[in-house]
């Protein structure tokens, strides 16, 4: 495929204005303006595709001393499968996180750091304890900081000092929120304290024994603007309960009531979803992007390994 055809082409069909850019196989990443909707059969395949994409991104970046790959990370049940696959690649020796800096999206306010439902605990148990990341490079907002806004400002500074985020991985709430940017959040917001929406508290109750009074009501979160600043964004969306939010995010206009829709204006966003998450999309949208899967799969096949850089 020539470099020319790799540039974004506006889609003539559904008029959604998105194109299918592709990386030239074998070369390091070229920056193509693209919105991709990658549809896999089920949760496991979607998790694997996403993990392969992250792995390839890190490996092809060739991180090393003084050259860190900056990765934005989510929490919740959606990315759990992806984290498992990444741990597998690390254990196989294909991937190392030694020169990776991570920035998590959010953390509850006033929840003890070692509480089993805190995002610190989640990240430790699901990811950090299984890999070789340097603890100094794993950044998570501190919901127990004495000055919360100062903590948020410091977080923004740390991201800037790290050179910005290469790839921000996120999920989506049933109400279309990215991180804890609830409906009505500014689309140019930065890291700040947010009061959680009722729907979010209800969705989180299952992690607190179903007791609404135990669920935190405030959180520190990166802003929509913070994520928009990342070079690349990848949003994981799986399950039928997220289908309506996905529809609002990509088939309707940019709207602060569905904050994920802001990424229609990001130069490089990939939505990775399973069949169930597409249930509210138009058939022709789904068919169009399914037809592009052979192109999308070139981003993850072959799976690059750090072992091949040993010589």
């Amino acid at each position: 495929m020539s470099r020319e055809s790799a540039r974004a082409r506006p889609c003539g069909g559904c008029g959604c204005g998105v194109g299918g850019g592709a990386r030239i196989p074998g070369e390091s990443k070229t920056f193509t303006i693209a919105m991709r909707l990658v549809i896999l059969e089920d949760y496991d395949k979607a998790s694997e595709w996403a993990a392969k994409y992250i792995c390839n991104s890190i490996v092809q970046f060739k991180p090393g001393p003084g050259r860190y790959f900056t990765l934005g990370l989510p929490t919740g049940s959606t990315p759990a499968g992806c984290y498992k696959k990444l741990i597998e690649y690390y254990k196989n020796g294909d991937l190392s996180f030694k020169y990776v800096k991570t920035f998590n999206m959010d953390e509850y306010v006033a929840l003890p750091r070692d509480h089993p439902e805190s995002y610190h605990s989640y990240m430790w148990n699901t990811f950090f304890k299984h890999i070789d990341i340097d603890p100094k490079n794993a950044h998570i907002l501190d919901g127990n900081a004495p000055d919360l806004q100062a903590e948020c400002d410091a977080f923004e500074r740390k991201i800037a000092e790290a050179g910005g985020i290469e790839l921000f991985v996120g999920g989506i709430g049933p109400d279309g929120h990215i991180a804890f940017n609830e409906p009505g959040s500014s689309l140019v917001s930065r890291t700040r304290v947010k009061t959680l929406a009722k729907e979010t508290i209800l969705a989180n109750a299952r992690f607190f024994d179903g007791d609404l009074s135990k669920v935190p009501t405030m959180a520190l979160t990166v802003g929509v603007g913070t994520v928009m600043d990342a070079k690349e964004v990848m949003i994981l969306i799986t399950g039928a309960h997220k289908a309506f939010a996905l529809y609002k995010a990509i088939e309707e206009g940019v709207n602060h009531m569905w904050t994920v829709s802001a990424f229609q204006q990001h130069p490089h966003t990939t939505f990775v979803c399973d069949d169930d998450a597409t249930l509210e999309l138009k058939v022709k949208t789904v068919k169009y992007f399914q037809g592009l899967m052979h192109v999308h799969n070139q981003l993850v096949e072959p799976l690059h390994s750090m072992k091949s850089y040993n010589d």
Partner: protein
Amino acid sequence: MSRQRAFPDTGSAGILQRLARPSPKARHVTQRSPDRWSCDGSGAAGNFLLPLKMPSNKSVSDAPITQFLNCHILKDHTLQREDLWVREGKILNPEKLFFDEKGYADVQIDCKGSIIAPGFIDAQINGGYGIDFSSATDDMKCGVSMVARRLLSTGVTSFCPTLVTSPVSVYHQVIPQIEVQDGGPKGAGILGLHLEGPFISKEKKGAHPEQYLQTFEKHGFQDLLDTYGSLDNVRIVTLAPELNRSEEVIRELVRRGICVSLGHSVSNLAQAEAAVKQGATFITHLFNAMLPFHHRDPGIVGLLTSNEIPAGQSIFYGMIADGIHTNPAALRIAYRAHPTGLVLVTDAIMAMGLPAGRHTLGQQVIEIDGLHAYVAGTKTLSGSIATMDMCVRHLWQVAGCSMEHALEAASLHPAELLGISQTKGTLEYGTDADLVLMDKELNVKATYIAGEWVWKHCKVANELEMGSE
């Protein structure tokens, strides 16, 4: 070999191969196939220790941090696939280390699927490897040290040297020589003495010499003090509660922090319960040297299901699970009646670790025949010669209990009995890192005390051996 390489050298065995600056020796090692490194669980060749040359974080402590990987640890009463972290001889909370100190391991040990349990605690052991703790000698300190060192191979990291009924002169000679001390590379830790006798029943003396039995008739507690001389390093006393004035003796011992155990006794259940109300918490080798269970008077055995135990107090019972002292069916009855009270003890005699034949125990001669040890010329059992790890395996196989329960019977329960479960007998954060590494059949592969490697099975190759091939 390029130094400009961006990534760590990840060979086919992944984490095992990670060295900051691969030496020629390590390079040779990394070219091996993974199979050479694997441990098939039977204790066959497998490398454990591979120092990881990562700089240690010095923010809280300069002490090196050790991480045990690929292991199943006994935590919250289950065997979990979790790593175990140790610093300065204590079990470390890795999440706190990661987030608060931004720290990580200095040394990583690949356990290759081993089980890690808290080090075993033996509350009743009369000797071993040719040493008899009840013998009249001025060299007992040396003898106890030798046994303490040999015990490491059985997974025992703490023990209570036990003296059987002996003449007063022996108590006065031997007791001052044995002191409470921490374990280490020199041997298992000594928690204190277990004095089994002489205040026991004549009818249930078992292998104890009758001429040295005593009572509390004359001066109650003072009789005990006169007999033993000093109680400074005494941890457990076994006595028969039916003896006159035993209640005041038990009360005084408990007041001094000494664990009182009922044994070698013909007491009925009421007498035993009265003793428990005074603070007795242990039963010496359940079923042996006591009245058998009777449905109208269960005797001491009835304590397992008694509802006269004071609130907040637990009753524990020692079991010699060598397959000889107790029929497996009886073991199962006790286990099912009161699973959390079962404490494995070896009650091992000096012949443990010695070949078959005649040997001297206390003031008597005993005869070894296979795993049996009899009073010479009789069929009275003299004591056991099974090691603690054999007892754990036997319990697991015949009691129908889980592996976790069998391991806890040798670690958590004795620690609870002796009131030391805040520091020993568990793998909770902040407790002493006394560990025993075992394969899936519960054979001991390596023993650690305070996080230090104190014993390993001869078939477990260390890094030096692997590198030299």
